[in-house]
């Protein structure tokens, strides 16, 4: 991975990112690079600012300071249309899945296709929906409502919706939270398969060590709003710093 980092430019480059809410400083001069075909896990305790970081990367939150370059474009400087174009290349799997309750699985998947600036005809829409559902093994749920699905199925459908625009980067916000260990492992395996099949880069926010161990090419530890340590799983397990060690014990 180190060799690859040296010869390619990052698809996401975050420099000196700071974000606070009132007097609560969440991120302080945070730096991070994500490279093509890399699975990068941001590890941190609950409330350490992981979700704030991922929401800044997708443009849902505006940073107070610093730059977030996605495909060489600094997000805070973009207008709505430019941001929309970047978002079409970046998939986001929400922690709560965020499936639209009032829509069927088909309509949930069609929604991003119909709303983004890239226009698709009905045949293409049908084909993309079928392909995305096949990828997650849930084609039979196409006419079901989200309320009829189990937690694991909902996560898979949310993943299918993320995949439908064929993104170059996928952001996963705690993908295994709320799932039993077996379903959690299935989701992690699916994430790895997606990377292999589509060559996507992924930024995974998690505190599930199973997920970290299985999916991470590289790990960044977020502590007190900063990038505290980084390395591979094996490198970090050997780190004796108590703030790092606590995650691997």
């Amino acid at each position: 991975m180190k060799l690859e980092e040296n010869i390619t430019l990052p698809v996401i480059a975050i420099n000196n990112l700071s974000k606070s809410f009132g007097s609560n400083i969440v991120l302080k001069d945070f730096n991070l690079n994500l490279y093509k075909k890399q699975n990068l896990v941001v590890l941190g305790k609950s409330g350490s600012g992981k979700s704030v970081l991922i929401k800044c990367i997708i443009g849902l939150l505006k940073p107070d300071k610093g730059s977030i370059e996605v495909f060489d474009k600094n997000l805070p400087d973009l207008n709505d249309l430019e941001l929309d174009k970047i978002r079409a290349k970046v998939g986001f799997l929400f922690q709560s899945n965020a499936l639209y309750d009032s829509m069927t699985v088909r309509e949930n998947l069609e929604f991003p296709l119909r709303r983004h600036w890239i226009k698709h005809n009905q045949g293409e829409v049908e084909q993309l929906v079928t392909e995305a559902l096949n990828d997650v093994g849930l084609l039979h749920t196409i006419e079901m409502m989200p309320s009829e699905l189990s937690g694991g199925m909902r996560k898979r459908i949310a993943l299918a919706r993320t995949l439908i625009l064929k993104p170059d980067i996928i952001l996963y916000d705690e993908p295994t939270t709320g799932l039993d260990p077996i379903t959690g492992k299935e989701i992690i395996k699916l994430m790895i398969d997606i990377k292999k099949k589509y060559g996507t880069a992924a930024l995974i926010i998690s505190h599930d060590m199973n997920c970290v161990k299985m999916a991470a090419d590289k790990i960044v530890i977020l502590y007190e709003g900063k990038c505290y340590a980084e390395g591979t799983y094996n490198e970090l397990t050997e780190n004796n710093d108590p703030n790092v060690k606590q995650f691997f014990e």
Partner: protein
Amino acid sequence: MSQAILLKSFFEETGKTFRFILRFLLQWFKPRYEVAEFFRQCYVIGYKSLPLIGLTGFIMGLVLTMQLRPTMIEYGVESQIPIIVAISIVREIGPVITALIFAGKIGSSIGAELGSMKVTEQIDAMEVSGTNPFKYLVVSRVMATTLMLPILALLSDAISLYGAYLGVNIKGDTSFTLFWTQIFDSLSFNDVLPAFIKTYFFGFAVGIIGCYKGYNSNKGTEGVGKSANSAVVLSSILIFILDLLAVQITDLLGFN
């Protein structure tokens, strides 16, 4: 001290609501226009409210007539019942009761729907899917409530008057033609127009308050319940305040 805090929070909330209204007005003019979603909301908000509005309107007309009858008989003006009922329904009771029922049904449903979308990150998901959630969810709903309530109020008035006709005939004997002739003779442009215009403002109030409460919902499922509840309470209060203002304005303009 606690009163000062309450006063501060009241003014803060009022300020935020006005900012939300301003945002609505700015977004309303900007493309892209969510025409399909607007028509869908008109169907959900207007057409699906019709049975409830119709039923309450019918009962309102019927009960009002039955309640009025003894007093009217006492004063020897029983024949004037259709006129009294028509004026009270068209000018005041019809629009206000319809708006209150509408606030209970639609205000709470908008508050709860947007509130649950907010806490389950569906609004964020919409934004990352290339959609302006404010335009898609708020503008379309507020426009639909603003346009649908006047239509519902007119229909409710008509159904109420039909209920009144049945009420008159429970113990009396008035022909259908005579009843409606009396009503149309007694009503003037000054009765219908101000009442019709104020329902646009009632509809706007129900929509904007429901959306504001839902869109700014927090604290998980508890917050969703609070959003739905406060949307109904606040929009009902606002309907009475707007009604009071409407009466004063129509009086000043010489419509009374």
